[in-house]
């Protein structure tokens, strides 16, 4: 009997094979949602297993919450995609390719989160990236081609650097490892203290730059806004919600290994510098964007920067805040993309100037989007407010001046977001192109995400928080 994590990884891929054979839209979306629902059930079942290894996968406190989050977002995204895919007008080849790539991406995502072996982690992130490149290029417009090519090239370069870092890490620990353990994360962490400090430093730099590209950290972030702007809207949701998290977790695991050695250079300042740069650049860029999806892509860069900054500060409290921030960001950002996607289809354009007055024309959608944008701006009582507050707290304790700069960036971003919120939701309505209708398949996921974010922000279940505290302790 195959261990449950392995089933979790392989099942979406089997689903992908089935989906590649289904040309009709109606059947394909049902099968897609079915696969995502089964994955969600499997993720819930994973909580019942004891923590530990199953061959090349591992269940621990760090990846369980994120696997659950990933499967939840996947489920709601597949429901949303079912509602909006008809409007894209794909032919049957592209329907097959889209659904196949979707499930391949999910399988790779679960593999990246669950794998114990650093090499398998690398392969999984690579597969996920390639699947999302295919999805970004779906529309075949010149802008889509440009976005997909930039994505492909930049991430190809980043992933190569990450592989080099992995090889360096292995070569540092090689003499101390038992051969069968290979690149196991736990084994590496155990022997890290006796490895050569310089090699570990060099390996971490490569891993940070490589996986940081995937996570959208400045300076290798330029693929992110364009990739979010092109392709079917569901891809933006999964990119922001899932791929960025997987990459950031990979960086965290590397940090844990390198941090186990007392003499290595402090990786905190590196992470803090990249995170702060991301926040500042994004907060300024938010004021100049005119395309809605690109706007929220930059917002993703900003939030990943905040998470990186939190991880850079180090210590259990800040790491916990960072992890919470990542979870909250996934939930709320996908909700935003659901709303924006529906709104763009209604108004017939993605530009911010063309989408306006949502509250007037479609109240459920308008208010949902307004709340979601407010949440992403860090307004209470959603989860992001709590995590940002915790990050600022920890920053004030560790590095007061940097905390001031971070707060400044956050305020600038917040004002930009609220300004856009007003323009999108409350000002005079622009004409609708498509019928407004109650798109339940869109509204239910949106409000569900908001509800979960609210719940986690106000009263986090004890089980969840104990997991995250353990995870923060693991990383150190």
């Amino acid at each position, binding site marked *: 009997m195959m261990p449950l994590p392995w089933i979790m990884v392989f099942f979406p891929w089997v689903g992908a094979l089935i989906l590649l054979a289904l040309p009709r839209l109606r059947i394909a979306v049902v099968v897609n949602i079915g696969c995502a629902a089964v994955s969600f059930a499997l993720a819930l079942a994973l909580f019942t297993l004891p923590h530990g290894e199953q061959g090349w996968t591992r269940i621990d406190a760090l990846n369980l919450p994120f696997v659950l989050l990933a499967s939840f977002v996947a489920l709601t995204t597949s429901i949303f995609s079912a509602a909006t895919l008809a409007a894209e007008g794909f032919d049957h080849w592209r329907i097959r390719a889209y659904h196949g790539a979707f499930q391949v991406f999910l399988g790779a995502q679960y593999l990246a989160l669950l794998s114990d072996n650093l090499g398998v982690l690398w392969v999984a992130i690579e597969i996920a990236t390639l699947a999302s490149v295919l999805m970004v290029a779906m529309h*075949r417009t010149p802008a889509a081609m440009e976005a997909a090519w930039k994505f492909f090239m930049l991430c190809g370069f980043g992933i*190569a650097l990450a592989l080099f870092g992995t*090889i360096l890490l292995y070569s540092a620990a090689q003499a101390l490892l038992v051969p069968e353990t*290979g690149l196991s994360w736990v084994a590496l962490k155990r022997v890290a203290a006796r490895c*050569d400090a310089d090699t570990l430093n060099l390996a971490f730099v490569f891993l940070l730059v490589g996986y940081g590209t995937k996570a959208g950290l400045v300076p290798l972030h330029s693929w992110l806004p364009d990739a979010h702007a092109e392709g079917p809207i569901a891809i933006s949701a999964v990119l922001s919600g899932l791929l960025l998290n997987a990459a950031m977790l990979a960086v965290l695991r590397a940090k844990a290994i390198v941090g186990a050695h007392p003499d290595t250079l402090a990786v905190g300042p590196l992470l803090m510098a990249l995170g702060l740069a991301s926040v500042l650049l994004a907060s300024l860029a938010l004021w100049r964007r005119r*395309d809605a999806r690109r706007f929220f892509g930059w917002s993703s860069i900003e939030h990943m920067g905040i998470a990186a900054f939190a991880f850079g500060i180090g210590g259990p409290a800040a790491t916990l805040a960072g992890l919470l921030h990542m979870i909250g960001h996934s939930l709320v950002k996908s909700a935003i993309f659901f709303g924006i996607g529906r709104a763009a289809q209604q108004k017939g354009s993605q530009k911010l100037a063309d989408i306006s007055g949502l509250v007037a024309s479609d109240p459920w959608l308008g208010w949902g989007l307004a709340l979601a944008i407010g949440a992403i701006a860090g307004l209470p009582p959603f989860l992001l407010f709590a995590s940002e507050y915790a990050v600022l707290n920890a920053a004030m304790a560790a590095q007061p001046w940097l905390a001031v700069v971070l707060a400044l960036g956050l305020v600038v971003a917040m004002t930009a977001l609220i300004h856009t919120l007003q323009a999108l939701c409350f000002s005079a309505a622009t004409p609708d192109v498509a019928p407004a209708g109650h798109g339940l398949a869109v509204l239910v996921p949106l409000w569900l995400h908001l509800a979960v974010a609210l719940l986690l922000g106000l009263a986090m279940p004890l089980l969840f928080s104990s997991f995250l505290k353990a995870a923060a302790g693991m990383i150190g």
Partner: protein
Amino acid sequence: MSFGQLPYDLAHLLGGAVLLLSFVLLYQRRISAVINAFATQGALLALAAAWQGYVQGATGLYVTAAIAFGAKAVLIPFALHRLVRRFNLQRGVDPALGIGVSLIAGVALASFALLVVLPATAGQRALAREDLALALSVVLLGGLMMITRRNLISQVIGLLSLENGLILAAVGVAGMPLVMELSTAALVLMLAVIAGVFALQMGESFQSLDTESLDTHRGEGE
């Protein structure tokens, strides 16, 4: 192991030959010459992997060598030549940076790689250190080629030669788990397939494979 012993020397020499071909890639002006140089680099890489397999006694490396040869020395250059003929591409490479400047930048990057890797890996065997330095140089030169070329095929070849450097690094570290080498070698094929799909798509949409035509669609399209 040190100089004067055949296993070390030959491994080192093969690594140096791969690096030399990275420079040759930067130097070429015609597309078919670039593709042929890339094929030669793939063949040399396969040879290096096979030699490491012989020296380390790791039979898995022979598989890696076979995949590298089949993919990079045969299949991918063949497909690229077909692509060039199909779109009747202009044969020049159109570098964004002059060839002389690219070569100087290449030497600077190779020296940088050497200066970064050698001190940082002071605790290891000399063979492993120099191989890592050579591999990083190949990676950085592949990256340079990606940056300084406007033709889509040259960019793809830059990315693939970057992967060559990674394979060189992976086979050089003794005892590397097989999954790394095999997955690297196999992912190259995936990358090449996707790049090929792109090239076909772009060629049909834009009637050329010059990525400068993509620049106007960057960002907001303003």
